[in-house]
């Protein structure tokens, strides 16, 4: 950390023009992040504490508290999120354990299927669970007398949608362990259970907490799922939508958005603190733990993986099946009617093209911005004191801001009549910017990790050879970091393709994205076309992911051959 700001210049040489450019450029990036992240959040805060007459006060909060049903909505949001966390994290933990700590065949396959929910919008799960467990569902009997429209449906669909997020964190947490601890435990003839409780769990505790916080935050801020499958069950995220889109009550929307922002932000601050403490987990002398085949452990875990992957494929499969059935549940003939008449003829297919455009632009513009900013932060120099910590904080903040909250902030800020950026409102550009900001943190972390992996000697050497740092960036740093850059592009593309939350407030009739179109189709009761659109999105994301694997594969062969030793 400390090194970042220090000069790499040989003593006694003055910085050249291009070296001095780093500071101002980083400042520019900070200004951009401030305009598109801090100011909208500020507008949100102002909107919540100012009443219609413009006077400051907590009148809106009092009004909110007095609204009948709001206490119920807060309580519902909370207990559903807790239930989702309590179910998702153990499910994902065992799954990650099976992938990382057992000797299962087809390990890569389990991993891919485990992450498959990321390919589609969260609504895919909601639609599929309606089809499986709704009144006409094959598995309706499993729910007994309880209706799927309500908390049961919300919890099921949210568990499905948040599972890969928890899985990614837990796989990393379980990937490394000190083998010596297990050897010591074996030497003390500790039981299997004892080893698990005293060695494995403590080793993964930060990952567990982190996964729990991420899932909790996801559930609190998820809005598409309760909208589609929630029936009359009130939750805060939907309440924001009703206030802002349904009743155009932006002030009330801002209050609810703040209520949503606080727990999520808190969760991420806690997580961030824990992450910092985690650093000293593994020492240099640690021996990587390698699991040995053991059928008594592997067989049940294999069975578990089979069970979960069947369920997950069942969800995706049901969405695809729904999109192909002619008239559920009375005419189960397969046809492309929903694609042809429900989407193309009805003019909704444009939404898919819009989404492609948004996702393409988000990846094309977001990736260079994220990477260049991270490079300026890590490898550049100059700029006013305090600039670097500020940029780091700005880059970390989006993780703690739910998309819905960001979306309302954008309306309040950019729709203000006095705002010179008012022209951006309702354009494709603002949707692209909102998406980049919304998913900024993970991209930034990927870029920083890749950059930190490169020795600062490169910069020092090129500086003493009087080569411009930009040339070094282009010739050395960028090629070396190419896998990370591609990973960022893929991440931005897929998330832009599937996200609903921020965009639902920002689209205009011409820029309607596919994920929001699903929501509108569902609202009209058109579940078939909605499923068709969802399937299209999943296919698009899957294609991009495949393309990404192909390109990285080729790259590793051609460009990254030097990594072979490390891998």
């Amino acid at each position, binding site marked *: 950390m400390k090194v970042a700001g220090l000069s790499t210049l040989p003593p006694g040489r003055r910085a050249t023009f291009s070296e001095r450019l780093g500071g101002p450029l980083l400042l520019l990036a900070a200004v951009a992040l401030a305009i598109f992240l801090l100011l909208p959040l500020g507008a949100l805060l102002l909107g919540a504490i100012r009443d219609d007459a413009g006077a400051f006060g907590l009148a809106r909060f009092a009004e909110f508290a007095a609204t009948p049903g709001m206490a*119920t*909505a807060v309580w*519902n949001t909370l207990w559903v999120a807790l239930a989702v966390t309590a179910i998702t994290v153990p499910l994902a933990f065992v799954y990650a354990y099976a992938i990382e700590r057992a000797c299962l065949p087809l390990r890569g396959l389990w991993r891919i299927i485990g992450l498959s929910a990321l390919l589609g919008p969260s609504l895919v799960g909601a639609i599929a669970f309606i089809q499986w467990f709704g009144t006409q569902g094959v598995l309706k009997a499993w729910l007994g007398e309880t209706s799927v429209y309500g908390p049961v449906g919300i919890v099921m669909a949210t568990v499905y949608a948040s599972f890969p997020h928890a899985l990614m964190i837990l796989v990393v947490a379980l990937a490394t362990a000190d083998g010596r601890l297990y050897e010591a435990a074996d030497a003390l003839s500790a039981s299997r259970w004892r080893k698990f409780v005293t060695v494995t769990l403590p080793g993964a505790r930060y990952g567990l907490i982190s996964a729990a916080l991420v899932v909790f935050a996801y559930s609190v801020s998820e809005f598409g799922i309760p909208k589609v499958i929630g029936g009359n069950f009130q939750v805060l995220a939907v309440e924001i939508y009703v206030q802002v889109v349904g009743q155009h009550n932006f002030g009330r929307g801002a209050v609810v958005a703040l209520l949503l922002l606080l727990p999520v932000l808190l969760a991420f601050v806690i997580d961030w603190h824990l992450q910092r403490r985690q650093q000293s987990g593994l020492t240099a002398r640690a021996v990587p733990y390698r699991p040995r085949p053991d059928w008594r452990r592997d067989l049940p875990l294999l069975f578990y993986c089979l069970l979960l992957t069947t369920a997950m494929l069942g969800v995706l499969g049901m969405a695809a099946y729904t999109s192909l059935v002619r008239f*559920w549940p009375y005419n189960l003939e397969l046809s492309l009617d929903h694609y042809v008449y429900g989407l193309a003829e009805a003019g909704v297919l444009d939404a898919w093209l819009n989404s492609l455009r948004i996702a*393409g632009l988000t990846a*094309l513009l977001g990736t260079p911005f994220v990477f260049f900013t991270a490079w300026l932060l890590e490898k550049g120099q100059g700029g006013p004191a305090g600039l670097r910590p500020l940029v780091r904080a700005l880059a970390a903040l989006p993780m703690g801001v739910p998309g819905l909250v960001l979306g309302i902030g954008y309306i309040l800020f950019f729709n203000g009549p006095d705002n010179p950026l008012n022209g951006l409102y309702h354009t494709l550009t603002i949707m692209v910017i909102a998406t980049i900001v919304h998913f900024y943190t993970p991209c930034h972390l990927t870029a920083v990790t890749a950059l930190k992996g490169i020795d600062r000697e490169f910069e020092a050497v090129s500086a003493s050879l009087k080569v411009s740092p930009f040339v070094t960036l282009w010739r050395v740093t960028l*090629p070396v970091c190419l896998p990370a850059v591609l990973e960022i592009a893929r991440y931005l593309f897929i998330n832009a393709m599937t996200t609903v939350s921020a965009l639902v407030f920002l689209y205009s009739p011409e820029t309607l994205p596919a994920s929001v179109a699903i929501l509108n189709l569902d*609202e009209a009761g058109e579940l078939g076309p909605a499923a068709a659109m969802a399937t299209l999105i999943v296919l698009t994301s899957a294609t991009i992911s495949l393309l990404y694997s192909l390109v990285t594969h080729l790259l590793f062969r051609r460009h990254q051959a030097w990594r072979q030793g490390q891998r």
Partner: protein
Amino acid sequence: MNLKHIVRSLAVAGFALAAALPAHADKTVLNVYTALETDQLKAYQEAFNKSHPDIEIKWTRDSTGIITAKLLAEKAKPAADVIMGVAASSMVVFDREKMLQPYAPANLKALNPRFRSAGATPTWVGMDVWGAAICYNVAEMQKQGLPRIESWKDLLKPEFKGKIVMPNPNSSGTGFLDVTAWLQMFGEKAGWDYMDKLHENIAVYTHSGSKPCVMAGAGEFPVGIAFEYRANTVRAKGAPIDIIFPKEGLGWDMESIAIVKGTAKLEAAKKLSDWATTREANELYAKNFAVVAMPGIATRLKYVPADYEQRLVKNDFEWMGKNRDAILAEWQKRYSTKSEPKK
């Protein structure tokens, strides 16, 4: 594959994406706010553009309640030029807020005089009537042994507990016309009493007026309180539903058109308003609705009875518009807070 190639192909992809953005020709763009069904918009727009290729309609579509809220919220700086296919009861609200530009469309005299606002020059003109209908899934009726439905009161039978879907009047114009019809038919107190009991049987309140019938058609919930256009289309698609017109009478509202006061595109707005009152337009409405503004246009929807017009309740738009806020607030207070889904 080297870095330059990748950058180059990415750039090419980017330009291709940018080029794919729709090009705008030199046309007058008219912002039209509407609550018409998505599947109706296309036909109206194509017919209008045949005679007025120089005007491009940009639709902003949402359900009646949401469009009404949007227009009211934008009152100070309206984004809409024309409001088309929005409930007369909402038009009355806009009129009271002085948001509408009085204009007598060319064909006004040819229309049934009931299809216009009062006053010398109307502020809004009706297009067609849309009214209540119940979609009842007969396949599920037999399977679950449910009783027949002939009247609104039949919906209160305990057998229907958790089997009925209806639109939320706060967002759906169809929901609002049901609620106002019950209040006008049964009287204020008896009307709310009726809804209290009905609430016990409702499984889900939806945001759109179409969804209840679609759900009934799919057997998700056997009874959907909807409107005749959607009932007719769902039935025509082959759903096993009966369309029921309760004998007490049917709530209804009028889809209508108005010009927003202060629009910069008044000429184009007038042209759309003129077109909306032509015989051609009325014939298009007649494909979707049983009762249209121009008298004498044969309108037989396959699954809607010929005497449909006689079944409509007496409706007072002024009363509906004046009490809109109060009715919706009362509804919200009574039924939206009880959030537990019923079994």
